């Protein structure tokens, strides 16, 4: 992935579910090394946009480029991009800490240097390192998903409402981690309902309406 291209370029994106248009001529640019947070009411198409950028959904029309290339299901794409737009699953018989270590080791990181224990501690999971993920609460599962997403190396994070199910301290902590991610040169595209959280994470806030060329 070459970083002299914008992280995400979307142009003329159209998606409809049946006869209901959800995205009409949507355009968006996320310059590399910056963050963009898309806001808007339920059902306006934030998740659909993120799914299209993550190559998990085929748009009806339009062009999407991620770091200058077309998004796809290749290992190279998924080594650069992390997304949380899908509900997570967990491996059987693997603890919280082991999930984090598995992700780090799959990316060739030394588990001792990757800072697994610090990351679990920062997101309040240190006391649950030996639990299996299905035993965690929904908020804790969200924390684990974000821990794994932030621990592994990546160039672009695509997060769908990362503040969801988190308490106030959790939101502040995650916003801080996202701001660090941007400072270290990463790019961020997320959808959120919490403007305070979005601002704290350092992402530029834009409304879904402003992305569409056709007023709705």
């Amino acid at each position, binding site marked *: 992935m070459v970083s002299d291209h914008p992280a995400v370029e979307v142009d003329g994106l159209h998606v409809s579910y049946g006869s209901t248009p959800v995205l009409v001529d949507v355009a968006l640019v996320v310059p590399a090394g910056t963050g963009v947070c898309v806001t808007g009411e339920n059902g306006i198409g934030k998740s659909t946009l993120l799914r299209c950028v993550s190559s998990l959904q085929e748009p009806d029309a339009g062009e999407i480029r991620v770091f200058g290339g077309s998004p796809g299901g*290749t290992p190279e794409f998924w080594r650069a991009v992390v997304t949380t737009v899908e509900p997570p*699953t967990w491996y059987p018989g693997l603890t919280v800490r082991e999930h984090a270590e598995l992700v780090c*080791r799959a990316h060739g990181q030394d588990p001792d240097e990757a800072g697994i224990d610090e990351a679990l501690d920062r997101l309040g999971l240190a006391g649950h390192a*030996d639990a299996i993920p*299905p*035993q965690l609460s929904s908020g804790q599962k969200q924390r684990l998903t974000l821990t794994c997403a932030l621990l592994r190396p990546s160039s672009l994070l695509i997060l769908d409402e990362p503040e969801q199910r988190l308490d106030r301290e959790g939101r502040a902590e995650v916003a801080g981690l996202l701001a660090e991610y941007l400072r270290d040169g990463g790019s961020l595209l997320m959808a959120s309902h919490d403007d305070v959280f979005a601002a704290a994470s350092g992402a530029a806030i834009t409304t879904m309406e402003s992305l569409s060329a056709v007023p709705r």
Partner: protein
Amino acid sequence: MTTVPLVPVRRWISRRQSAHRERGATAGNIYFAVLFLAVVGGMVHRQLAVVFWPTHPNASGLAAAGLVPVLFGLLYLALRRFGPLALSRPAASWLLPAPVSRRRLLLPSLRLTAIVAALTGTLLGLAIVGHAAPRTLGGETIALLGTGAGLAGVGLLLVALAAQAGGRWGDRLDALVSLLLAAGLAGLIADATTDEPLAAGGWPTATTLVPLVGAVALVVGSFFALAVRGLARTPNERILDAAKTAGTLFDSAFGMEPSFLTDMIERRYWARRKLRSVRFPARLPVLVGQDLLLVLRRRSRVLWLLLAAGLPVLLASAPHALIGIAVLIGALLAAGIPAGNVKTDAGNPVLLRLLGLSSRQAMLQRIWVPGVLAALWSTAALTVLSVLGDLPAGPWWALGITLGPVGAVAAVRRARVGFVRNELLPLDTPMGTVSTGPLVNAVIGPDALLLGLPALIEIAQGHPLSWLTVLVQAVVGGVGARAYLAGTTDPDRVVLNNR
């Protein structure tokens, strides 16, 4: 707390439910069930006779003694797994929290389970008597023995009931029953390898049995009465668990989707385990390390499989092709111990995307541990058979090792199969319509065992094994595994999409 009488509530529910059914639907269902049993019974009555009452007794004392813990142990473990006290899911949601008499709510379930346990116990007892007892035994004695076995079935139900309501001792008792079952299997294997004389004498007469069975009936009856009195004390969460099991069982049966049940059992297993995080082995590829960790955490399964390596010996007197099939199926089951990881990835590729590995890399790593397990199991099974003289001379251990890739491909293919495809066209047969989805689904996975055909033919023919056959099997297995990986994975794709 005031208690609302339950009978009117149940009658009201059943009247509302029957309002949605066609007139005479229940009678029609009973008619079809009876007709079905009569037709199937008529078709397989000869096979049933062989199972329950062969023309001549054919089991030794050791075999009969082995069958008792095996069959009754299985009955007990089945009762434990399904409750034994359960409610339907709607009753668990709506009637369990309602102010109705707990005992009356649970009594029908207990009654039904007791009838099933008694019938099963009687059938098991009669089968054991039919195989071991001389045909001179009087009808009265046989009836008394059957009654005793039925009472033993109810007795086991009462123990399972107490374990359901009780504490940790239930788990320890389950382990003990599993051990007894294993001992029984060992007895059966020992019987198959030695020439034990048929069990002839030593059967009690009716006069000694009458007071004995009477006493057992008294004890079981009084404990049953105590159980009914204490029924209300069964903890709610145990009943809810059993209700979920019963519901999932019905879902599996009606949807013809066995994975509902197996997934639930798997989830419950891990929810009860207390784990401690460990470091992955640094030298191994990461997914191999993960599979290994899963196998180490399921040590009891590995132990069971090692014990089961002796089971093909029981088929020594059957056609040798059956031994070959048993060895191949065993290899599939052994390789399936860490299959939960592949199943997770096949069901939802979220984690594979997070790991950033290609489907080729992932499967290449995921096939190793199953391969080693299948090779170990086949080697153990074939070595046991060859040492006991049930196979002709030859390097059977080497043939076992070559079956590793065969079992691994079959297990991995099975784990990737996903849900039953019920949209497949049904087949019209003279016996009625057969839906093909479940059939196709059941075959995917085991079909890859065809890669073990050279070994199967060699075992079936009964000729001494040559190194050439071992080589042929090694090549077929290796090439087959390679072709499977090349055909179903892609170095440029992450998801394990095999559709």
